[in-house]
């Protein structure tokens, strides 16, 4: 009635979550482990200025293994590299975006192969 509603209860079971994508990204770009979620990347983001694209939030989702939103948003990045330049921890965020895209592409390929196999 007032535009508010009760949020759905949410629980994350880390043991059951699929961590293939984030594991691949962390292996390829270990600097992501040093992220302290300050949000500097997101505040300078050229794409985030135009559309909903929040790299800090995407990182949280990635770490949780919740990929549906990541798959929607990750292609909005323009790869301009400002996030990487401002990052106080020296995380190569631009490469994180690229590696995430690569991991998504690989996982979709292997899904397709699985379906074919069945």
């Amino acid at each position, binding site marked *: 009635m007032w535009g508010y509603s009760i949020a759905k209860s949410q629980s994350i079971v880390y043991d059951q979550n699929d961590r293939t994508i984030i594991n691949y990204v962390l292996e390829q770009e270990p600097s992501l482990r040093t992220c302290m979620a300050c949000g500097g990347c997101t505040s300078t983001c*050229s794409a985030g200025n135009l559309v909903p694209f929040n790299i800090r939030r995407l990182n949280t989702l990635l770490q949780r293994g919740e990929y549906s939103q990541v798959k929607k948003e990750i292609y*909005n990045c*323009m790869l301009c590299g400002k996030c*990487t330049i401002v*990052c106080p921890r020296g995380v190569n965020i*631009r490469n994180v975006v690229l590696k995430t*895209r690569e991991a998504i592409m690989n996982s979709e390929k292997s899904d397709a192969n699985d379906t074919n196999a069945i």
Partner: protein
Amino acid sequence: MTQMPFDIFVLPFTLGMSLLFAYLLLKYAHWIWLLPTDDKLRILKGFFSQKSLRACGEIFMESLLHRKIFRVDKRLGFMHMSLAFGWFLLIVIGAIEAHTYAGGSAPFYFPIFFRFFVPYEADFFLSSVYVQLMDAALLLVLTGVGMAFAKRFKSNIVGMKKTTKLRRRDKAVLYSLWLIFPMRLLAESTTSGLHNSGGFLTGTLGTIMSYILPLQYMEYPLWWGYSIVLCIFFLGLPTSRYMHIPTEMVLIFFRNWGIKLRPDNPILEEVMILSCPRCGICIDRCQLNTNLNINDTQAVYFLQRIRRNEDYTAQANNCLMCGRCASVCPVGIDLNAIRNRRRLNFTPKEVVLPYDNKQQRQAKVVYFAGCMGHLTPHIKNAMVKILQASGDDFWFMDEEGGVCCGRPMKLAGQVDAARQLMDKNRATILQSGATVLVTSCPICYKVFKEEYNLNISILHHTEYIEQLLKSGKLKVTRQDMMAVYHDPCELGRGSGIYEQPRNVLSAVANLTESSNERRDSLCCGGSLANLTLPSAKKHELAKQTMQVLTANNPDLVATACPLCKRTLQRAGDTLVMDIAEVVAKAMECK
């Protein structure tokens, strides 16, 4: 000549030579066959034109005399020249000599083994001159071989800090090449010694050898040996780095006929890869090698990996694309373009980017600060001030932020998505009705010029400011400070803009020189093109570049790229400013 000269030892050479020629003819015919139709037409049009003549001239200057290598280092140039030009002289003079003797008709192996078939001092037109000339050419080649041999142990001898680490196959063919000329010297000297003939080199050596060695038993095996090493070299050529010798000529012809590297044309890329002689000149130029000791990603090793079908993903991504290697490559291979083509595209084709530029306006001059311009507000503020002072009717297109120019996306290999960004910006720029597009960022500048197809004047802000100063629209007072200019990679080597920034800077400050300028300028390390280099390493590069720039203790390091400014200002104590900022400051002090 009554009887065709023949001896069974010519067979290895004849076989090797024939197989090599057959292979090359088939290979080149196949390439031309695979070219797109418009490129085939270019060949047809160019074949009987001046372009072919120009290509021949270039082949003489670069493939034989190696002018570009002389520019890198005189000793290195001499080494390559003596091998290539010396061998060329041996072949040409030898052919003239043999055909003059034979009166025109002789089998094609005859000139190669002429001294064996005509061992005595033959008397024909200019015969004694030919003998001496041939010896001189052989001496020239042998000097080159000697230098090449020494280079393998100590590359400093020819001015190289590092030379290419060769694989086994390259080494085997290299040794056969080195052996050809000493074998020829020994074979010819032996024959000369036996028959009291020969020129100043082979004759003298032959006489000396005849005192101490049983020449009559050595002559035949030596000529056999000469023929066999030639055969090994010819058979090894197509799979070794020496494929560059014939292929570079194809590349020079293709380039002169106007065939360009395009996404739908992988042939020219293959020609370029096979044209790489693995000379290793790119190795010393690469800052990843000289400053960070990364030794597997230089152009020569990257191309080698592609050629051998080895995994090259890491090498494709680990490159600053500063263009320092390409600017000295003696073959003129488009190294950055090949590297960029080999980066993988992870963005599906069907992805549609959901944003657009927020605003649209009409103006004569459109100013585009770019993403990096927004990261360095001093630069864009200075530019706004300059644009206001110019009196031009201008619109700051991405004042509220806008769509990226697309080049970072393209450099990361995401070509389809990059095209979408370019189309969005292109539409906005064209709708504004502008005749001039000014940008602060050399990364944007390069892509606006090369990919946008705008048909309006595209200026980097240094060019624009230079025009304003020349036309008197902008008045400045010279500041009393000593400034050194840092050439950004994308603006200097990338776009050929060297003078305009210097002209502007010398109008507002006292310009001094640094040791690495213009074509030799160092990368600041901030390059967006390197996808994987950790930030600590980039910072390391920046510090070393800053050290070189501030060697003469200038008051100011001036640059013309927001990314360079951002990278360098954190790498040293000296003040770093963009030229636009210096100009804006010089306007205040009226």
